């Protein structure tokens, strides 16, 4: 078997049994692996309408065919489950070193079932699989957990949850290598519910390569393309993703104060240029990555920690009207250590600040916490982040996310979410195509599963007018399908700063065999996207959930270069459904499912 390791590890936490099952190669190739294969397993094994936090829900951790392979950016793995935040499919991706090390154990996928009666962690060393006691690790942060396990088991890489996952926050992340996160959708809460604290891996298995010589040649060629690309080899390694702060703001699409404004004259205080000049300690690259966008920055006391990404800088920064790197770095460190999704955490604090500003949250509710909810209060933002992680005081309410928070005050419109998941750092009123991604994303509000900022602002692979509507739906669909390919084969979406569809075909075929061409590989991505849609339809998340917060559709932008614009989802959505081969209600047609080889799931289009 080439690319794939050929084994699925099934771990039943209730019975404390583990079992190795053969990977069906044909199925793996059809759904590519990782994200696609994980969604397929969720569809086939988990019955409809289970509670996300229940023994019936499963937690899947999956590598792609190229994860760990000798091709650039191959350090990615995926977590797939039913999300406690959205009730929809959760597909959370992470980099670092863990994914490649997991693949070296000789497995492609772990399926966690049931629930342990007390805290445990899983240890995999090649064929040796042990469920070990984790009582002594419960309550520990990501770095404490990682260091404690590394002391017991030399040479392992550790994936774990922090206290936020243990306390079942629906915005809890799964962390690996201390500061890398499978962040979105509350996957950490599913792990916490199962009393699974960590997964430690080490292995000696090699990936079988279809054509070694060709893989070497193809890999060298792609590395060269990435290094020579001015973004992948220049802007990103020099400034990290934080380089976006200024360009997004200068375009007037930087949400400020919970999307009440869309531009700030203080952006440079929290820009990538400022981070590089004053806070950068060194780069922190993922496995086999020539881009190396990851950062190590210093806290106010000089301690080096994993640095914030653009979205994190925005959520704790501009979205809360805070322009202070010390505070943002501190919030990011707390989220990494306690295991919280930085986007949802910062954006929920911003929503709470607006609820306070508008008089929904009263002073007496937060008095005992000793923290304000005033815009721009940097100490409060740090304080609330910690309280959310530990569910202390009013932080307990915040830890449920902005949708549940705002709804509890009868003001759900103040939550800037799609499918109850917080929107990231781009105001779609100024990037119309990106708004499609927000609205239709199967995992809820998310920027990364079809990053239309590339063509609409950054000019990759070509520059589009960010306010235009024409052609955006078809463009977005292609981006959604391509991202599903990249996630499912186990590579990083940042490789699209330089690489395109034919490059992914080259790498997959060199490693796995001559299976795909440009058209069929993109179609495999389309298959994955449609299967996720079918999962959501089965769970009752139909296309009436493909919407944007009212503010973005009805309230024109009040300041900056996008002033006066709203998002035109009403015009874009029907076109998107049409190019997808879905009906006007946003449901895949039988013909589309047949074309994609998904006829076995036809019954879900009538849910």
């Amino acid at each position, binding site marked *: 078997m080439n690319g794939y390791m050929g084994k699925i590890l099934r771990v039943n936490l209730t019975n404390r049994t583990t079992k190795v099952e053969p990977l069906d190669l044909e199925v793996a190739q059809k759904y590519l692996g990782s994200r696609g294969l994980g969604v397929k397993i969720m569809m086939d094994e988990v019955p409809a309408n289970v509670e996300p936090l229940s023994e019936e829900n499963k937690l899947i951790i999956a590598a792609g065919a190229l994860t760990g392979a000798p091709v650039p950016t191959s350090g990615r793995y995926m977590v797939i489950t039913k999300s406690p935040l959205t009730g929809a499919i959760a597909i959370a991706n992470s980099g670092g070193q863990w994914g490649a090390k997991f693949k070296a154990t000789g497995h492609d996928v772990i399926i966690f079932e049931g629930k342990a009666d007390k805290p445990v962690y899983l240890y995999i060393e090649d064929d040796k699989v042990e469920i070990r006691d984790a009582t002594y690790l419960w309550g520990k942060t990501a770095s404490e957990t990682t260091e404690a396990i590394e002391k017991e088991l030399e040479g392992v890489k550790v994936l774990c949850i922090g206290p936020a996952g243990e306390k079942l926050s629906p915005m809890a992340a799964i962390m690996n290598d201390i500061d890398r996160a499978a962040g979105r959708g509350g996957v950490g809460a599913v792990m916490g519910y199962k009393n699974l604290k960590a997964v430690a891996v080490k292995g000696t298995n090699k990936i079988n390569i279809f054509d070694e010589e060709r893989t070497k040649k193809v890999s060298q060629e792609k590395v060269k393309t990435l290094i020579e690309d*001015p973004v992948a080899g220049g802007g990103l390694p020099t400034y990290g993703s934080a380089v976006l702060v200024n360009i997004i703001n200068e375009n007037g699409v930087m949400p400020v104060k919970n999307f009440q404004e869309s531009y700030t004259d203080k952006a440079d205080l929290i820009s990538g240029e400022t981070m590089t000049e004053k806070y950068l300690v060194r780069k922190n690259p993922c496995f086999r990555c020539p881009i190396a966008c990851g950062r190590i920055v210093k806290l106010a006391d000089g301690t080096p920690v994993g640095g914030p990404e653009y979205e994190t800088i925005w959520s704790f920064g501009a979205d809360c009207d805070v322009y202070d790197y010390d505070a943002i770095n501190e919030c990011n460190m707390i989220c990494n250590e306690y295991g919280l999704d930085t986007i949802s955490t910062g954006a929920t604090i911003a929503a709470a600040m607006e609820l306070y500003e508008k008089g929904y949250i009263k002073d007496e509710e937060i008095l005992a916490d000793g923290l304000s909810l005033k815009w721009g209060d940097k100490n409060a933002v740090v304080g609330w982040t910690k309280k959310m992680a530990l569910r202390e005081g009013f932080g307990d309410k915040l830890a449920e996310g902005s949708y549940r928070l705002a709804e509890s005050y009868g003001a759900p419109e103040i939550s800037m979410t799609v499918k109850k998941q917080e929107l990231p750092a781009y105001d779609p009123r100024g990037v119309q195509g990106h708004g499609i991604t927000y609205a239709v994303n199967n995992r809820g509000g998310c920027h990364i599963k079809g990053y239309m900022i590339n063509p609409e602002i950054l000019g990759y692979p070509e520059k589009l007018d960010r306010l235009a509507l024409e052609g955006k739906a078809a463009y977005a669909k292609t981006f959604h399908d391509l991202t599903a390919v990249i996630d499912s084969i186990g590579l990083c979406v940042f490789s699209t700063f330089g690489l395109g569809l034919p490059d992914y075909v080259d790498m997959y075929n060199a490693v796995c065999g001559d299976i795909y061409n440009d058209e069929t590989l993109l179609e495999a991505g389309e298959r994955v996207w449609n299967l996720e849609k079918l999962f959501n339809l089965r769970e009752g998340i139909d296309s009436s959930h493909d919407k944007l917060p009212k503010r973005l559709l009805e309230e024109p932008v009040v300041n900056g270069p996008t002033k006066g614009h709203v998002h035109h989802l009403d015009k874009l959505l029907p076109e998107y459904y049409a190019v997808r081969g879905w009906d006007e209600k946003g449901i895949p047609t039988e013909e589309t499912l047949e074309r994609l080889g998904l006829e076995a799931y036809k019954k879900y289009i009538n849910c």
Partner: protein
Amino acid sequence: MLKVEVRLFAYFREGREKKQIMELEEGTTISDVIKILDIDEKEVSIALLNGMDGPFHRELKDGDIIALFPPVGGG
């Protein structure tokens, strides 16, 4: 004469002011500004005129804001 604000980002800031007001002759274009700043036009990935994509040959008006970026990306 007209006054425009020029903002530079990423490595364009090396050895240059990150923000400055320039007094220019009527008829000056973004392309001319890039030359005055001794930036290689080929390295300008994005030129914004008042927050929207600004064609290099567009004549500037008093009060315009120009933002120049080398290739940048992230996400």
